[in-house]
């Protein structure tokens, strides 16, 4: 078991390294550079050259890559080319915000999705099952920014219950923070809930076709008990995988929601950094996103193995 986890971690590190090469190459092949992105049509040839020299953009790409990798390995993410501030200090508050919002949405979405999915499995084919399927399909089909605008239109503009701006600052008290981020969190919940709920329903129903379930019914157990006690634990593996993917989405894929609610998360930072060719920031964000993906998928694998006694106790 421990060996397996160590193996996964090693593979994860390798994947991360490969991702860093891809990220670096990606930023290199973009047309234009930081200097011209910043100066736009205020640029004179002299000010461009001066800025490039000051930013070290006049040296070859592989040299800059290796140098950067060495620094990252020792925990130094470098300085933002555009603002001259340390990248770690730029990213830290944004990362906290992103994790807060993702956590907020996940804490609501995961239990609700599981409960809704189990209920759909219990009342399979019934009115509830059909209704919940329809509603969740609808929230999947509508793009997330539209979900956000619809919520803003009714909950903040019409009713005035909730703020449409989630402009938290590092010293916003926790209670205020929950109120300010309620709408973006709700938007994300609506977007991710459908995947998890449908996967719960589908994998539970698949298990329900097994002979041992029939046995459980023959023992005279009520349906809810069969589903929750007997079918659900064996259906966990695929559900955990979907949850991991959705959590990864909540961390890396919410830039549109951030823009709609003006939430200072990591996605917005990445977009700004890409448009200004701020390579150190782009790479650090890219690495964090890649790490989040790899870590969550790894955790999902390990949990899936742990949920299966046959894999947990191999002979």
């Amino acid at each position, binding site marked *: 078991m421990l060996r397996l986890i160590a193996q996964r971690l090693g593979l994860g590190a390798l994947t991360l390294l490969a991702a860093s090469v891809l990220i670096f190459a990606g930023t290199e092949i*973009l*047309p*234009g*550079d930081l*200097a*011209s*992105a*910043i*100066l*736009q*049509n*205020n*640029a*004179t*040839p*002299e*000010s*461009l050259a*001066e*800025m490039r020299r*000051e930013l070290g953009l006049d040296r070859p790409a592989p040299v800059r890559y290796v140098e950067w990798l060495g620094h990252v390995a020792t925990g130094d993410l470098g300085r*933002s080319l*555009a*603002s*001259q*501030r340390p990248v770690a200090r*730029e990213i830290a*508050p944004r990362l906290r915000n992103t994790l807060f919002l993702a956590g907020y949405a996940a804490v609501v979405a995961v239990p609700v999705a599981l409960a809704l999915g189990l209920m759909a499995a219990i009342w399979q084919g019934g009115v509830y099952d059909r209704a919940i399927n329809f509603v969740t399909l609808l929230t999947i089909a509508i793009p997330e920014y539209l979900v956000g*605008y619809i919520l*803003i239109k009714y909950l*903040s*503009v019409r009713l*005035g219950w909730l*703020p*449409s*701006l989630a*402009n938290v*600052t590092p010293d916003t008290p926790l209670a205020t923070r929950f109120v300010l981020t309620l709408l973006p969190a709700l938007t994300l919940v609506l977007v991710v809930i459908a995947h998890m709920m449908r996967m719960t329903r589908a994998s539970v129903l698949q298990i329900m076709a097994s002979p041992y379930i029939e046995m459980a019914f023959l023992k005279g157990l009520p349906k809810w008990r069969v589903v929750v006690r007997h079918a659900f634990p064996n259906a966990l593996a695929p559900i955990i995988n979907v949850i991991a993917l959705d959590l990864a989405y909540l961390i890396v894929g919410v830039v549109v929601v951030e*823009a*709609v*609610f*003006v939430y*200072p998360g990591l996605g*917005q*930072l990445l977009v*700004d*950094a890409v*448009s*200004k060719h*701020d390579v150190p*920031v782009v790479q650090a964000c890219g690495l964090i996103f890649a790490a989040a993906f790899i870590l969550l998928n790894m955790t999902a694998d390990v949990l899936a193995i742990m949920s299966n006694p046959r894999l947990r106790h191999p002979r």
Partner: protein
Amino acid sequence: MDELAFWRAQHAHGRIGRRELIGRAASLGAGAALLGTFGGTAPALAQDVPRRGGTLRLGLGGGSTTDSLDPGSYTDSVMIDAGHALFNALVEWGQDGKPHPELAESWEAKPGAVEWIFNIRKDVTFSNGKTLDADDIIFSLNMHRGNTKSGAAGVFREVADIRKLGPNQIGITLNGGDADFPYVLTDYHVLVVPNGTTDFSRAVGTGGYILEKFEPGVRITARRNPNYWKKDRAFVDAIDITVINDSSARLNALLTGQVDAINRVDAKFVRMVEKNPKLEMVTSPSGWHSCISMMHDRAPFENHDLRMALKYGIDREQIIKAVFSGHAVLGNDQPIPRTDPYWNPNLKQIAYDADRAKFHLKKSGLSNPAMVLQCSEGVFPGDVDLAQLFQQSAAKAGLHMQIKKESADGFWSNVWLKGPFVTSYWGGRAAATQMLQVAYGPDAPWNESHFRNPRFTELLAAAKAETEEDKRRPMIWEMQEILYSDGATIIPVFGIWLEAHSRNVGGHTPHAGFDMDNGWIVEKAWLKS
């Protein structure tokens, strides 16, 4: 926006009097159309009395996580507004289009306008307690000279020497005469910091507000400077700028009362804002203009008749309606806006005329000249639509061009100034001669259309060195006429800044420069309750 609507807007914003408006309307034969203008719902500027206190919350587009407090690095609204709160300039670009004293309390030019003397205001202190003197001014001006990445480096090329004449007096020598030099000092990059400043992580300035928090691309807060030297400005206790780059999110924030004023209202929503009893629009005709520039010295555009054919082949009215939802002013292929005191009113507006375009095309002797127009959404949102409308209207006149959509990334470094037929834009300049110099001057690095005209070159140098108003005006008018009839740049429209605020805000007024009163909203606006 037609001519009448333009003057009506000017009246609404207190720029022209009722008498003048009626006169203008009569000259357009549109007196009756004015009924209903007077007593409208435009902000009643004159009656409002400034009130102190409160926090002015601005929701602004045009900010980025890469923003810095270094004035030389400013490029967009958020930092321009913040800069006006934290720092002062030497000279203020007034709403009347004229330079007004700020930290320079007076100035004079020796004849020929090469030698300038500026007297610096006494008894002004920085937020760190230091007293302002000539050394601070010289240091701040030199930040834009020589090897610098400042955005004002271009306009400072004409400065040959800056020296200290006394503790509160400096002398500036230019490379050539420029009677409009004080306007250069109104550039939003040219703000005053203490001598020797190298660390811009904190802002030490003489401005009306002292920086509290700076989160680039997110939020900027500042509290009032209790010792501010201007007694009739900086009314609110605190400024709170939230960066909102998404235009719908910006409007939502205003609708839900989370901010008091926003910039860049989406033209599609102007009517909605106007109908909302809690909100007010501020429409501000500006010097911003879109361009389609041909290179004056490259085939086929060196052909005068082809250029004329293209000028008649663009449907400006249609572009205003379709691309700007009606919120733009007709351009007439010369870069001086109507808001400028030197605007030449004698040039007949060029309108779409397929027959005249065909006539000029025939006269040019060219058959089906190859033309590829390079455009990009990175120029401004709607640029590609503008290019496509141009392509269609020109095709109806027998002018067939291809459109090449360029990536927004790198447009300014790889396409602009390189392609012979490209779209671009210019922000308004404070002085007409600056605008003519920067984009059409014979040795200007940004002369995108490679415009060369001996008479124009002669007039530009003469007008710049001429300090007498009556002699300058005809020269500046003639330069506009030369660009209008011989220039290689099509200027389809001038922009209008669309801004909105809640009715609780007073003193938010239009300006021909940048949006939000050229950034002055932070000093000039107040809260009514």
